[in-house]
């Protein structure tokens, strides 16, 4: 007896827009003439909507809400993914949420980012049930009134009527649906638009920030204009993250802030030959300063974010020592963030950003003069070609007996090449460039892990060397740090071993040719 799987469709739900209370009343009256309709309850309350600063949930079509003491992750159509207990608060981290069916999928999306309250919704719902002659519920009707509230703005959302099917009573659902349409009600196919409308009360604009770098450059753009456009975008990223860094909302504000600094410094180095030497050297040294004053907090954050991973590497008997290490870091972080705030409020920082913006945007600025009036595209072609050849030259030389330092150098070269490609990606075929960048990222990940593991071991060894005395605390700390260093050293070796394979995959002829093809195809297009 072969049994096929059941075709168990989810009960349907259809939502109609209501133009006003009379329309709902009219429909309920006409329903009452054919069915028994009973109001089962009214609920009202406030629902708070959350997302990360870079809209990680919205990008994946999810929303996180808190209603009463219920935290819920659902998709744009209202299908619940998971629920947990939680009260409305300003920010939420994954680790603030108790272990639940909600936490795992949420963590996969938002990782270490904080969930920030974006807006709230005041809602009122009236529910009716449609009964058959046995007084069994055969359909449900919900009337919804909602008002969205953001920072100083509020908005009434269109009134709606939702009709819900009860499994096994599809014919009743169909009858009522037809009645609704006959009354002139219009159905909403997609509740996404309503959600977007609700989001509009927030002072934020939907998808107004993302960490991915993207600047569109026209093929005819000059060097000066391109540098200005790219650097203004990066300065914008610094500015937009500045608030989150100072308010210390989550670690990624500072991370993104520092990436913008690094990209800016990289561009200044890469294009050094065509940029005004005096100004360039001034800004290079100032951004170097900014990089150095933002470093200590980030260095600590890297370890704090690894807390779970590190604990997992050690047996439980060494956990208490490791906790002492993390306690020290947390204390250190409090001091460092204070210092960082001071730097970011300093006249030096303000002057840097103001003069930088002026330099990049004033029509008479040196950045737009002389050689920088030339087209940027040929320069980008040349630079990419040269940098790529240099990267491969160095990479090809590395073998199993090469010093660690050679790998670190290659990583930095690779990073500069990747930034270069990202700055100018809009000059080239999007899909092909994306393909190349993906290959490159794979190799860079290996090199990045190698570097991270080196730095981590060095830092832990340094801390270990600083320990003195024979107290219980020192012993515990020493044992844990020692244990951790030995696990990291093992990982370091295996990442090093994986490099050769990773590099040979990357440097395959296919990839060598790919970049050449991308660049030469774009040059033909221009000529």
């Amino acid at each position, binding site marked *: 007896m072969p*049994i096929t*799987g*059941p075709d*168990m469709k989810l009960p349907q739900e259809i939502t109609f827009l209501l133009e006003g209370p009379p329309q709902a009343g009219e429909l309920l009256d006409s329903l009452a003439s054919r069915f028994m309709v009973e109001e089962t309850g009214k609920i009202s309350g406030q629902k708070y909507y959350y997302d990360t600063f870079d809209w990680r949930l919205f990008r994946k079509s999810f929303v996180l809400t808190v209603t009463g003491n219920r935290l819920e992750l659902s998709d744009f159509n209202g299908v619940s993914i998971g*629920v947990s207990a939680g009260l409305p608060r300003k920010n939420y981290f994954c680790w603030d949420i108790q272990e639940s069916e909600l936490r795992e999928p949420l963590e996969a999306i938002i990782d270490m980012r904080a969930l920030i309250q974006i807006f709230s919704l005041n809602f009122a719902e009236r529910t009716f*049930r449609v009964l058959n002659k046995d007084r*069994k519920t055969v359909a449900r009707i919900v009337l919804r009134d909602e008002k969205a509230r953001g920072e100083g703005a509020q908005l009434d959302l269109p009134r709606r009527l939702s009709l819900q099917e009860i499994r*096994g009573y599809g014919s009743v659902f169909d009858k009522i649906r037809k009645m609704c349409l006959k009354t002139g009600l219009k159905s909403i196919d997609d509740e996404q638009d309503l959600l977007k409308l609700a989001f509009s009360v927030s002072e934020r604009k939907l998808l107004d920030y993302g960490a991915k770098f993207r600047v569109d450059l026209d093929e005819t753009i000059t060097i000066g204009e391109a540098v200005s456009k790219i650097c203004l975008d990066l300065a914008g990223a610094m500015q937009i993250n500045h608030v989150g860094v100072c308010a210390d909302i989550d670690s990624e504000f500072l991370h993104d802030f520092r990436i913008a600094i690094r990209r800016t410094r990289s561009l200044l180095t890469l294009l050094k030959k065509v940029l005004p030497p005096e100004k360039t050297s001034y800004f290079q040294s100032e951004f170097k300063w900014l990089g150095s004053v933002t470093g200590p907090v980030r260095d600590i954050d890297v370890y704090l974010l690894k807390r779970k991973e590190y604990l997992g590497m050690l047996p439980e008997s060494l956990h208490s020592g490791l906790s002492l290490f993390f306690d020290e870091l947390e204390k250190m972080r409090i001091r460092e963030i204070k210092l960082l705030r001071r730097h970011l409020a300093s006249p030096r920082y303000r002057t840097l950003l103001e003069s930088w913006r002026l330099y990049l945007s004033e029509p008479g600025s040196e950045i737009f003069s002389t050689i920088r009036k030339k087209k940027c595209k040929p320069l980008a072609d040349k630079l990419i070609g040269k940098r790529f050849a240099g990267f491969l030259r160095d990479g090809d030389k590395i073998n199993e007996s090469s010093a660690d330092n050679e790998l670190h150098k290659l990583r930095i070269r690779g990073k500069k090449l990747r930034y270069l490609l990202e700055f100018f990606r809009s000059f080239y075929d999007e899909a092909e460039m994306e393909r190349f960048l993906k290959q490159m990222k794979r190799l860079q990940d290996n090199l990045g892990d190698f570097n991270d593991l080196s730095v981590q071991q060095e830092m832990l060894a340094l801390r270990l060397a600083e320990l003195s005395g024979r107290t219980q605390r020192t012993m515990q700390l020493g044992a844990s740090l020692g244990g951790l260093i030995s696990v990291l050293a093992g990982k370091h070796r295996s990442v090093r071993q994986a490099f050769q394979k990773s590099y040979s995959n990357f440097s395959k002829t296919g990839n060598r040719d790919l970049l050449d093809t991308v660049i030469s195809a774009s040059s033909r297009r221009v000529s």
Partner: protein
Amino acid sequence: MKIIAVYSSKGGVGKTAGAVNLAYTASRTGRQVLLCDMDSQGAASYYYRIKPKKKFNRSRLLKGDFYEFIRGTDYDGLDLLPAHFSFRNLDIALKEAQHEKSRKVLAELLEPLKDEYDYIILDCPPNLTILSENIIIAADSVVTPVVPTTLSLLALEQLLKLFKKLDCPKEKILAFFSMVERRKSMHLGVMSKYGKYPLFMKSYVPYMAEIEKMGLHRKPVGLAGSKSVAGRAYDLLWQEIRERMAD
């Protein structure tokens, strides 16, 4: 998905009340629950005010063509497969199935529902036939109400024998005392003598007018919330069933 059969070969021991109320309690914890009314009398279906669709019958059930006849109750997360009058001959029909497979038919019929429901609760008819054997084989746990009387204990003994015959682990049996009247010395005696066997759960369901009146109100007792003493008894029972199943 876990399948829980509420079964006893004896009638009138609180099987249907147990199945109806446990299914409701289970669905309150946010789980997806299907209550299958296997008893042709259709008492569970009656409590939930659900009638089978006209096209539904035993032969569609046995062909595995029954999923479209599952109906939603008035409560979120709780569906019901109603009983049909033709279920009274389910035994005969099952016997006609290929001999070596005849005991596993029900298990195979329910298997495709594993992605749809967290729990399937079977309200079983009181008999000792091949249907009972199917139920025991399909179920992860057999919850059996025992009125603290000699006759009811006899039914439990029969169940143990049947388990032995089918070579099923008797740990699957979760017995509970049902319709307990604490003023009756016999009830107390039986409970103190047999209650200590691991087969018995600690929770029991008292004899209550509230449960009797379910036929009148046609609602699970738990609907009254914490006000309902019977509802609380089923909550505790469900909690213990979940704990025992997790062991």
